């Protein structure tokens, strides 16, 4: 399971991705789950990425957390 959730760390060029670190968490996560995540999930992701100052790490971890949610995992 950890291999699965480590996948986004393999992203080579996060700056080229459609998620930018300037985006709000809601806007950014809608790239992966267009309907939008519930507020309490967004809050967890927000809290988990707020303290990351490196933009690349911020984007990577936002992606990592988003694809870990049941919303992204369900099809």
């Amino acid at each position, binding site marked *: 399971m950890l*291999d699965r959730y480590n996948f986004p760390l393999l992203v080579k060029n996060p700056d080229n991705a459609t998620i930018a670190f300037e985006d709000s968490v809601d806007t950014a996560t809608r790239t992966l789950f*267009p309907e939008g995540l519930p507020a309490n999930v967004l809050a967890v992701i927000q809290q988990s990425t707020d303290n990351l100052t490196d933009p690349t790490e911020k984007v990577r971890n936002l992606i990592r957390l988003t694809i870990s949610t049941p919303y992204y995992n369900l099809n």
Partner: protein
Amino acid sequence: MNRRAFLKIALIASGAAIGGYFGPQLLDVANTSVQSLSNDIQFGASSFTTDDWKIPHLLRRAGFGASPAELASFEALGVNGAASQLLNYEQIDNSNLPDQPNITMEFARKPSARETVNLVWWWIDRMVNTQRPLEEKMTLFWHNHFATAIYKVRSPYLMFKQNQLVRSKGMGNFRDLLMGITEDPAMLIWLDGALNRKIAPNENYGREVMEVFTIGVGNYTEDDVKAAARSFTGYQIDRLGNSFFNAKQHDNGVKTFLGQTGNFGPQDIVEILAAHPATAKSIARKLFAYFAYDNPSDDTVNRIANVYSTTGGNIKAVVEAVLDSDEFWSSQAYLSQVKSPVIYLTTALRSLGATVNPKAAVGTLNNMGQLPFDPPSVFG
């Protein structure tokens, strides 16, 4: 796995991932949040006051998700227009994609790890970057249906050829597709059709073509398996990796198959199976489950199977009937599937427009248990 069971696993898994990286203080928050989701969330169309969920739902099921720009372009078409564009992809230019993988384009049963990675990545890249997502989604469906594995075929070239076959015929007539698979060199190796001679019939393909590919268990006897095997005798593979029919190795005797008697050859068996009502139901049920949800009612299966029968096995018509059904647009279908590893990866890459190291990504797919071209069994 249903949604409720999945949510329990997701709670544990996502909690572990978050906790492992950010520390235990956030694990409690994440667990509480996901726990409350499993109790409170209204998974289903009824929870939406608008139709905003419909295009994302359609693009997840009939494709591999979408980037924000792609999503916007489909939303501009409306639901019916978006479905129509996905279905009628023949005129959409896809020439930006590589036609073939970086493998040796000749028949040699010596697969290298590098070539296998190149082959897998070529297909993953198509799923991520194609302008015809339903074409690749159907290719994935038929790859699972006619599951053939490189570990036995041992030829990336033949696996590529089979992939091209199901891509080109995957939305056409099922009879034509089944005939193509019957003669396909990779399949002839995988299910021993190339060893099936009149003096020693090999029953492997004759059994699987009924059990897995068409009518299903309970609709044939052991005598039917023997008759099918005799009817399929004669196929061989030449040094270039092309299949051919050697009439000298074919059993020209009279056979009785599924109640019909004649001097049957491969095409006769394919015709009988493709036209069989049980095939209509099994293909309808499987395509419905692929796009909508598992365990559809008998009424639903019969309605979709009727489309198969009345169109003479037109796969595109069946897919269109599924995508146009009330069931597809129901709360029972919405988010009712768990993403497979391939879908999990390709949807993320397509949505993000991100690039990854192909070798590492293919390795991750292997670790997750779904490596294209290497299904675990004939059941996909």
